[in-house]
């Protein structure tokens, strides 16, 4: 189980590091990134949000809010998660996506826990929150799928977003369970079989916040690189929604390659409070999961 706990920490740290690293190149094109950085591979903050080095954005903060709600209730608690999202929104975070903001406001104003279906909800704002969901449900894919959709529908109600969340959850479960990369690839092929637009074998370089572009970017670079650092550097240098593609790649690569593969320089640069909290949440969530063997 110790391996599981270490990989859980790597998953959550991967999310935060990918977020902090990618935030610098968010909304830039590959050409602009090359002109400014040659290769962007250091956690230096800046970017369109004028971040301090190691500062994270909504990708990590919403995940932390979700994890805190689950941990303080001792289990899944959708209303608690929604309340934490409201508290977070009012704390003047450095960024909030417009779709997430709408869903949180509708909960705050009308108590709505599920946003109605919307064509425009195929963004990656729900998929980016999957780390705590996956860690809470290690060993129970059915619970993971149910919770994935229920937390997603707080802000995003669209089949492409739902499918993306479930696939990310499954890949984290499998990676923490020490599967090999062919197994992970098979899981992505199941997603592509259901929704052909996710196909990524002829990657076109689109890295926008459209969940299809986001996952194509993550999968393309995950399967064409050999370690955690190489994967994240490749992803964030593609620009676009780089903090979120970085965060999702970080979750999966963290789970797969483990703690030792995370570059020490990135761990040190990550905001210290964030680093302590995500590592603690990872362990506590894993200990709540079926794999912990606790009665």
């Amino acid at each position, binding site marked *: 189980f110790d391996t599981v706990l270490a990989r859980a920490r790597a998953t959550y740290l991967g999310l935060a590091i990918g977020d902090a690293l990618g935030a610098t190149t968010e909304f830039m094109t590959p050409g602009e990134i090359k002109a400014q950085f040659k290769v962007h591979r250091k956690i230096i903050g800046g970017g369109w949000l004028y971040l301090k080095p190691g500062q994270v954005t909504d990708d990590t903060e919403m995940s932390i809010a979700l994890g805190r709600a689950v941990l303080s209730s001792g289990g899944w608690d959708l209303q608690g998660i929604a309340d934490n999202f409201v508290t977070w929104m*009012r704390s*003047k975070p450095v960024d909030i996506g*417009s779709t997430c*903001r*709408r869903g949180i*406001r509708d909960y705050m*104003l009308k108590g709505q826990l599920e946003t109605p279906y919307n064509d*425009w909800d195929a963004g990656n704002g729900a998929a980016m929150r999957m780390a705590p969901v996956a860690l809470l449900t290690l060993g129970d894919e059915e619970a993971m799928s149910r919770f994935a959709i229920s937390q997603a529908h707080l802000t995003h109600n669209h089949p492409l977003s739902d499918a993306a969340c479930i696939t990310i959850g499954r890949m984290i479960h499998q990676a923490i369970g020490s599967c090999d990369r062919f197994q992970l690839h098979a899981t992505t092929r199941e997603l592509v079989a259901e929704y052909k637009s996710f196909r990524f074998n002829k990657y076109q370089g689109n890295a926008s916040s459209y969940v299809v572009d986001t996952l194509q970017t993550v999968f393309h670079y995950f399967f064409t690189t050999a370690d955690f650092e190489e994967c994240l550097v490749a992803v964030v240098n593609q620009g676009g929604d780089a903090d979120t593609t970085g965060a999702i790649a970080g979750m999966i690569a963290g789970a797969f390659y483990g703690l030792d593969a995370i570059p020490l320089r990135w761990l040190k640069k990550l905001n210290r409070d964030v680093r302590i909290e995500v590592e603690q949440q990872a362990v506590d969530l894993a200990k709540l999961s079926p794999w912990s063997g606790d009665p």
Partner: protein
Amino acid sequence: MKKVECIIKPFKLDDVKTALSDLGIAGMTVSEVRGFGRQKGHTELYRGAEYQIDFIPKVKIDLVIPEDQVNEVVELVQKEACTGRIGDGKIFVSDVGQAVRIRTGETGPESL
């Protein structure tokens, strides 16, 4: 959707913005305007004679919001922007038929 147009005293802008952000509203468009009304401008000395400046600088906030949030927003702005002194300003509500987010082409309340 409705446009809520608020003409307020300039020093009240931050209070109003903060209160709106507690309601989860962070998007708005602001301009500087000159107000004429019952509030008198101050007098200025110019070449030895005193002149009444007849307008007062005001700030105008334009906020487009979904129809079901109008009452709450109007109440909040009125409460925050009020000092009880002449010249506190006005709130006008009018209809908006279409809205578009230029960056994405999204339309309707999702574009706000």
